[in-house]
């Protein structure tokens, strides 16, 4: 058997989000159109221009270990759902932006702290330690696309046959550093995030984690597991254009999507749903819409986005959104785009405002990042 021909499936997933600490809880609130966005008194007191954000309350964690705790909570659910013991040679592929942002803020006060022990790798190590994994974890620092990268890398390692099980995903604790940075960069909305809406004014910051258990389909089936979804391909490109702005014509995003489709041998007309990046910023939403129209022409599939509900969880965002994609396949339901009310004619994509039952087989999960990173992860229902 050629190991590259193996099919890779998701058999467990878990999330930690401002709208729920389980996939089912998050999903039901998302279908209701709820948003976790609200004003925060502590941020107002600290002098933030915008004090709206999507944060998780009631999480206990060790000092400067919020990201790790969120990741562990998500991993616990994923491992439990998979029904698998975690062997020592499991591969861990984990993405985040900077890791424990609060540690870097603490260092700026002049106090001593080991930053290496609080960067992206430290969260991945926390997962490895929790489950007794001896393989060195892979820490992927590709900002807001990190979750897609992590799952894609896990699939490639499984296809190569080097590992039999992978834990993959992303986490990001709430970051005051990012809050100030995005606000000062004028990328932040002062109230709600409205993806592809004519009245959108920017992003909102979120936080959270999503973790997946991935294995070869033949292994999952042999142990009697039912795959939740199959991961087909990951398309990656870089705009090479600007430190923070997307390439305006959307060509980098288009190439990422086309790469994902071509690699999997899937045609554009087969795609049932695009989970958009949908950051709610003027430039990014327009570039994404242009790319979708370049790939799909007049027949852009139904689109949705969850950042109006969850904010932008940065390194966790694409992983959380992948969990929603998988749940949508499971439920055969397209989720709404919370806070999207009036479509921007300059975007002009079929962005769903309320949930809808549909036959969902092929789903694209798009995620982009500062630095010009574009990613498109293609998954499908297992029964295809």
């Amino acid at each position, binding site marked *: 058997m050629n190991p*590259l021909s193996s099919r890779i499936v998701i058999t467990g997933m878990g999330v930690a989000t401002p709208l729920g600490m389980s996939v089912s809880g998050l999903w039901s609130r998302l279908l209701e159109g709820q948003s976790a966005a609200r004003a925060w008194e502590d941020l107002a007191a*600290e*002098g*933030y*221009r915008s004090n709206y954000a999507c944060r998780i309350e009631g999480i206990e964690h060790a000092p400067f270990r919020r990201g790790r705790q969120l990741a562990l909570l998500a991993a616990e659910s994923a491992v439990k759902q998979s029904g698998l013991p975690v062997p020592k*040679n499991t*591969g861990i592929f984990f993405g985040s*932006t*900077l*890791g424990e*942002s609060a540690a*870097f*803020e603490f*260092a*700026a*006060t002049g106090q001593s702290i080991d*930053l290496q022990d609080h*960067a*992206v*790798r430290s969260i991945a190590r926390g997962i490895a330690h929790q489950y007794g994994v001896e*393989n*060195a974890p*892979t*820490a*992927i*620092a*590709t900002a807001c696309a990190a979750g897609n*990268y992590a799952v894609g890398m896990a699939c*490639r*390692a499984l*296809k*190569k046959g*080097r*590992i039999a099980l992978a834990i993959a995903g992303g986490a990001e604790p709430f970051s005051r*550093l990012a809050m*100030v*940075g*995005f*606000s*000062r*960069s*004028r990328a932040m909305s002062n109230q709600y995030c409205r993806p592809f809406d004519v009245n959108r004014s920017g992003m909102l910051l979120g936080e959270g984690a999503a973790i997946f258990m991935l294995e070869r389909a033949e292994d999952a089936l042999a142990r009697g597991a039912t795959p939740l979804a199959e991961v087909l391909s990951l398309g*990656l*490109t*870089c*705009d*090479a*254009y*600007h*430190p*923070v702005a997307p390439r305006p014509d959307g060509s*980098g995003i288009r*190439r990422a999507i086309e*790469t994902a489709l071509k*690699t999997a041998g899937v045609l554009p007309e087969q795609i049932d749903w695009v989970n958009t990046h949908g950051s709610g910023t003027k430039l990014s939403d327009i570039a994404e819409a242009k790319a979708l129209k370049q790939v799909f022409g007049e027949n852009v599939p139904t689109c949705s986005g969850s950042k109006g509900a969850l904010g932008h969880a940065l390194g966790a965002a694409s992983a959380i959104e992948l969990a929603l994609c998988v749940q949508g396949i499971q439920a055969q339901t397209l989720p709404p785009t919370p806070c999207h009310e009036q479509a921007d004619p300059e975007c002009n994509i079929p962005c769903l405002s309320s949930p809808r039952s549909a036959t969902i087989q092929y789903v694209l999960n798009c995620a982009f*990042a*500062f*630095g*010009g*990173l574009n990613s498109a992860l293609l998954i499908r229902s297992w029964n295809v």
Partner: protein
Amino acid sequence: MERLNDLTRREYYASFPFADEKATMEAVNAALQAILGVPVSPDKTGIYLISSNAGFYSSVAFWEEVLEKGPGLANPERFPWTLANAPCGAISRAFGITGPNYTFHGTAMDLPVTLEQIDFDLSQELISQAWLIALDFGKNLKENTRLSVLVFSDALEVNALMAQLYRQPYGLEGLSSDALKKFQFFATD
């Protein structure tokens, strides 16, 4: 061994007296330009950057300014450099490279999995050339930055180096070859 020497002929070391990522990248890109020239196929070139501390300096410096001036007055220009993937993005812009763009937070421990990814991307023809770049911005944010580069155009080259580098997957058991010396500035953890 001859094959290995051939494929690593572009190995290079450089030191730069900066810790600030933005300032450092100007020197890094100049060095890469001198070593590698212009990529033949920018859209089929992938960059795979391993760094133990990209973004550290700018993150601390940015927050120092926030503490000094308040959240409403901090200069936003430094913020993009707080992201660990900013240096890799800067390389892509300097060379117009629009292929896959990876940043790993790690050390020599990450060489096997990084090479595995390069092997996959080359063998699947997602790229025709890979730039594997190790870039550390100095221990404790003050010492000199160090850079090394390997270029691969064929999955067989990657496999040859992987065979030299390690015998056990995801382990350091075999990491004793000359090739590893190029990455020896990374502290193992």
